[in-house]
């Protein structure tokens, strides 16, 4: 825990209020979850803090997860809140090595949403569920006053089944393991941001929003020696790798020049002052796996439509435990920290 020291003059932001930054996937988000939300509810399954909870019941192993979607705008290049709500939850299940089976679907609708918008979202939910091979088997709808929500919020929960011999968790990374990213990073965050801010690029940047469960099944068919899977959503690749380093108590070393980034995203990041390592993805995964199977799994991933740009970007080391270090293009090293605070534009 970060020390809370009253320096007298510094007001510091540790007041009794929640800031937007508490929801950004940053260190503050982690603190909110680990220090405030989890302790009163603690139990052995919850405390693992993986993307899904995995539990055993009557001889079977199941994964269960839930996620709420509040993206603004609700339609963005390459996707919309509906596709996101299905893919996000399917991916959280897949990151535990589970095959997703069923989803729930809850709408919180702000008065004033048009039926046309709702139908577009529903259609996209239907198509994403079909693609992922999951059924939506229960749901709920609430309508709230104008201003009490922003157009449409969606919650989905999902349940899946974990095959025997599969043991995937953020705490399973081992020294010597290789790290794979399934494709170019930052597309989703920049697509949403550019839509929101009205930025136009000559090559439009599309969200990568996609269900990854089939690719995960293909990877697991190659080998069950996949130790961690994580989808680098809010907080981006940097935060996902830091989570793994912390949970597993290992160091992670990555190489800048191996990380795939589309030119449009790089250009937008230059313009906005963002580091693509921190920009959100909705159709990418990070895999940490035994070195002897890395090439084989990589080859398999590249055959999948969502993994054709997959690359090995680094490895797990016993140095700098709990931290991520990146070799820069010029050959120096630098720390890659978790996202801190909100992603903000630079000013000069």
């Amino acid at each position: 825990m970060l020390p809370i020291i009253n320096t007298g003059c510094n007001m510091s932001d540790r007041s009794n209020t929640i800031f937007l930054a508490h929801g950004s996937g940053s260190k503050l988000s982690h603190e909110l979850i680990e220090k405030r939300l989890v302790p009163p509810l603690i139990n052995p399954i919850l405390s693992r803090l993986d993307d899904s909870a995995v539990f055993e019941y009557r001889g079977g192993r199941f994964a269960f997860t839930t996620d709420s979607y509040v993206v603004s705008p609700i339609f963005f290049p390459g996707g919309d809140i509906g596709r996101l709500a299905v893919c996000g939850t399917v991916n959280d299940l897949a990151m535990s090595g589970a095959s997703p089976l069923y989803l729930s679907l809850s709408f919180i609708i702000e008065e004033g949403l048009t039926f046309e918008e709702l139908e577009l979202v529903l259609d996209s939910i239907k198509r994403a569920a079909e693609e992922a091979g999951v059924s939506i088997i229960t749901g709920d709808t609430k309508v709230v006053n104008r201003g009490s929500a922003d157009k449409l919020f969606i919650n989905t929960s999902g349940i899946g089944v974990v095959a025997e011999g599969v043991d995937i968790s953020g705490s399973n990374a081992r020294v010597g393991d290789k790290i794979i990213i399934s494709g170019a990073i930052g597309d989703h965050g920049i697509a949403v941001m550019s839509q929101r801010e009205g930025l136009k690029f000559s090559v439009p940047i599309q969200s990568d929003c996609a269900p990854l469960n089939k690719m995960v099944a293909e990877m697991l068919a190659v080998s069950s020696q996949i130790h961690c899977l994580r989808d680098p959503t809010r907080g981006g690749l940097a935060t996902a790798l830091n989570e793994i380093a912390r949970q597993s108590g290992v160091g992670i070393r990555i190489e800048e020049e191996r990380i795939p980034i589309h030119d449009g995203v790089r250009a937008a990041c230059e313009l906005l002052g963002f580091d693509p390592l921190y920009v959100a993805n909705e159709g990418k995964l990070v895999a940490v796996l035994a070195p002897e199977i890395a090439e084989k799994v990589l080859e398999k991933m590249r055959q999948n439509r969502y993994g054709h740009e997959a690359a090995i970007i680094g490895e797990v080391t016993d140095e700098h435990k709990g931290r991520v270090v990146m070799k820069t293009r010029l050959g120096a090293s630098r720390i890659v920290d978790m996202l801190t605070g909100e992603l903000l534009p630079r000013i000069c």
Partner: protein
Amino acid sequence: MRFIDEYRNVELGRGLIAKIAKLSIRPVKLMEFCGGHTVAIMRNGIRQLLPPSVQLLSGPGCPVCVTANVDIDVSISLAGLPGVTVTTFGDMMKVPGSYSSLQKARAEGADIRIVYSTQDAIQIARENSGRKVIFIGIGFETTAPTIAAAVLRAKAEGIRNFYVLCLLKLCPPVMKALLDLGEVKLDGIICPGHVSAIIGSKPYEFIPKEYGVACVISGFEPLDILLSVVMLVKQIETGQPRVEVAYRRGVRSEGNPVARRLIDTVFELSEANWRGIGNIAGSGLKFRKEFEEFDARLQFPISIEPVREAKGCLCGAILRGVKTPLDCSLFRRVCTPETPVGPCMVSSEGACAAYYQYGV
């Protein structure tokens, strides 16, 4: 990516590093003026690649960092006035003032909105004619023309609910102040790239002439910075300090006269209060008389509680190049990006944030 990759080319970079190692004989202290330079240096690990004879010190070129506590306090007080919407660049949100921050004020109900440009602030004023919209105008010569343009636009359109808290500062006068203080014996300055795109290279000429200190105007890519170091070391080793431009694709020696005219139309020179340095005459900008209707200071008289400085915070000394973040006992322990004590840990271009984020 064209126009970026060329300036990150690894082979050329290694060549420049080898050149620096070959040229550099006597130990030199170079100040990278801009926060953007500091970030590029840390992000690319450039310090590790330079020979031990070349020492890089971070300077006061981060507009958020040099904003004095009193001005943060005033911004927060303005946000608390009824009917007022404060608009600001995002980096200002978390900077702790004496008692609070804009982020905290927003969470407590003040209407504070992050904008990407002054034009966004004007748009908010247009769309909310019932509210008084104040833009927190921080920045250097780079930002000043955009604020001037926004004010001229507001005047032309007859927008009567737009105001600016003018905290604009100028770079050459603070460089002079640092050299006069003489706390650090500088051999060379990596001069700001984007500021120079506006003011050109002439305003730095007093530095080699009067202080014998080498000057090279640099861009923000790794090769820009390495090239600037090569040029500085060459000037120093040959005993010929002068002003050179390494950032030719961005800076003309005459600068941008159109932008300077804009600044000159709306603003005039004034004293400015720099964190860690204090008041420097002629180092800031204030509204000219005919634009006083936009001046938030004049239009919203407020009183603030006595200003308090955070105990133990070295931001001031770090901004003067006297200390580095690693010298600060609060760094990483008490002062982190989540719980910043001083502004250098808040701004994405602050030296402390860059050391925290990228330092090994």
